[in-house]
């Protein structure tokens, strides 16, 4: 049994290729079902985001599994297999596990440490669970990947700092106000970045938003979009009193927010702090404003500075995160290897249990007229002896399997306890034991 990952990401394919191969959420259950029909695919999961499309599977034979998945992708998207070859990468076994953990921990993301990927992976897992296309191995893989990602997040600072302008704005606002609950933001002008920053602030607890624009209609439009209120452009210096955060992005070639207006507004709001973000170029807020007490002015370069120093910090944290991933991969691989011992252990237990029952019957046949209590004592004795004898070999098998994946050891153990021939003959002769369990290929 081996784990494989076939896919493509922002690292191997441009967006137009990723688009073609993506699985929109609505299609995922159907795709999982289709994938199930391919030969040798035991378990499967599809992760499709705007930056990556990846298919995870557990298969009997990795070479065949990879071929089957590639075939599925080209069939499903009706693309020639050759056209895929260039952008698809393949990871198998330990590499596949490592890849999964790195993706979950956001180490493989375009913006390292971005938090969305873990949620997307959880969703993908959820879909697969609903479609019942995963079982023991992928379930364990995904659970471990998710818990490792959480470990990475708590033990490193990888996700702590903001690496986009709009998140940097939220972070700074938190540094000034703490909880953003109940704060008011004022959007002066429009523009993609300003709107994004406003949206992030709203998502992080900001209560209300005021929008103002030179063209009032545009302000009304935006206000509706944000569920806020529109303010006439001429009124903004007085309305500014209400704003805890001011995002400014107008196309004006001069200062729109002036020193006097700000210092007046501050007096009127009893010197409660104002956080001003000037995204416009050329700047629209007089830089002198930053010298006023309780006013914190950040222009686009300041925010970029915050972001770039944060990115640097993340790189360092990513190294620590990689170490955690290495540890977690090792524990997963140990678990996976220990599965190899399971058939041998099951056979061993069955065999000794058969012997015990058989010998017990013989002995009890000879002991006539013993009481129930005595009978129980003899039974308990037999169980205890058998359990004690097999305990040590079982522990060793499990441990060795986890540590080394030593095939020879299982062969040797089977020989030592005579599991292969004896077991079956025994069961046949006596007709005891659960016959359904000794399916071929167990050893």
């Amino acid at each position, binding site marked *: 049994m081996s784990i494989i990952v076939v896919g493509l990401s922002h690292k191997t394919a441009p967006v137009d290729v990723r688009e073609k191969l993506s699985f929109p959420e609505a299609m995922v259950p159907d795709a999982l079902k289709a994938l199930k029909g391919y030969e040798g695919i035991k378990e499967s999961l599809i992760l499709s985001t705007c930056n990556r499309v990846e298919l995870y599977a557990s298969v009997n034979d990795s070479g065949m599994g990879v071929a089957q998945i590639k075939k599925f992708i080209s069939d499903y998207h009706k693309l020639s297999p050759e056209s895929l070859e260039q952008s698809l990468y393949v990871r198998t076994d330990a590499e596949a596990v490592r890849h999964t953990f790195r993706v979950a921990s956001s180490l493989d993301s375009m913006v390292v440490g971005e938090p969305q990927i873990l949620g997307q992976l959880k969703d993908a897992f959820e879909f697969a669970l609903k479609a019942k296309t995963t079982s023991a191995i992928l379930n364990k893989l995904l659970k471990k990947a998710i818990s490792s990602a959480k470990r990475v997040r708590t033990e490193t600072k990888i996700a702590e700092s903001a690496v986009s302008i709009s998140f940097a704005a939220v972070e700074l606002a938190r*540094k000034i106000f703490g909880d953003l609950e109940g704060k008011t933001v004022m959007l002066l002008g429009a523009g993609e970045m300003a709107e994004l920053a406003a949206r992030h602030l709203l998502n992080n607890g900001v209560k209300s938003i005021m929008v103002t624009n030179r063209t009032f209609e545009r302000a009304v439009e935006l206000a509706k979009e944000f569920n806020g209120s529109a303010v006439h452009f001429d009124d903004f210096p007085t309305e500014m009193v209400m704003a805890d955060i001011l995002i400014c992005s107008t196309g004006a070639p001069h200062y729109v927010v002036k020193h006097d207006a700000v210092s007046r507004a501050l007096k009127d709001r009893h010197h409660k702090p104002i956080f001003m973000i000037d995204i416009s170029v050329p700047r629209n807020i007089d830089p002198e404003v930053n010298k006023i007490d309780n006013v914190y002015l950040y222009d686009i370069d300041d925010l970029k500075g915050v972001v770039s120093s944060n990115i640097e910090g993340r790189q360092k944290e990513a190294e620590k995160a990689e170490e955690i991933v290495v540890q977690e991969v090792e524990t997963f691989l140990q678990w996976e290897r220990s599965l190899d011992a399971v058939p041998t252990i099951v056979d061993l237990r069955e065999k000794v249990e058969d012997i015990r029952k058989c010998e017990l019957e013989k002995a009890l046949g000879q002991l006539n007229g013993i009481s129930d209590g005595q009978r129980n004592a003899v039974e308990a004795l037999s169980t205890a002896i058998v359990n004690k004898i097999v305990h040590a070999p079982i522990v060793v098998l499990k441990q060795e399997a986890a540590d080394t994946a030593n095939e020879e050891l299982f062969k040797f153990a089977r020989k030592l306890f005579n599991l292969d021939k004896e077991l079956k003959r025994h069961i046949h002769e006596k007709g005891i034991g659960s016959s359904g369990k000794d399916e071929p290929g167990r050893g």
Partner: protein
Amino acid sequence: MVYLLSAAGYIAYIINPELKKTARASFAGAAIGFLLHLAYFSFRWSESGRIPVTNFFEAINFLGMGIVLVFLVMEFRYRIAALGSFMLPLVIIFMIPAATVSGKIEEIKPILRSGWLGVHTTLAVLGDAAFAFAFIVSIMYLIQERQLKAKQWGAIFRRLPSLEVMDTLGYKAISFGWPLFTLGMITGSIWAEIAWGTYWSWDPKETWSLITWVTYLVLLHLRTMGWRGRKMAFLSIVGFVFVLVSFFVVSRVPVGKHIF
């Protein structure tokens, strides 16, 4: 000693924020330190048969204990580990002079033996401890405020709570400490009347306390008028400097009744 360890733990935490466990251990350390301190305090009390606050050594000990108590309560309530990194070093700085002066138990003048002694000093010390807390928070506020304005982040920037939280905490501490301090002055004055027959005699300690009291009163008044932030933090630091002066300098000047 335990305080020293705890302070070291907190400083390590603020330098390396991954040491969350160290910070938690430091909190426990500070709590244990406080209990030991309290035990020592009680021991001295039972040895001397009076509340041990009558000489310089004892007074500093008592103040240190008060500060740690305020710190423990605030830390427990607000969970701002960075507080410890500032508060405990302050306590240690306080305790150093205590270690250098004689710790032996002295007899006090019978005229001062009174239940008022405990009430007056406890109130004053709790007030001072609250001011010390406000002082620390104000320093933290100013550090963060300056970094936010200058757009340059120091190593501890991330560990500091938000400006608004620190501003509010500082104000709360003062509005809690000031009434206690006021009561401390009133009880002291009543006691003075009993002991010396006069409510107020302008001895240096009394004068400085009055200055301190007025400073914080002005601060509270300005606050209700809408002052906040940097200026408040400055004023709170000034107020605490007066506390320090009256505690460490005035007490050593050999004039008046508050000599230790």
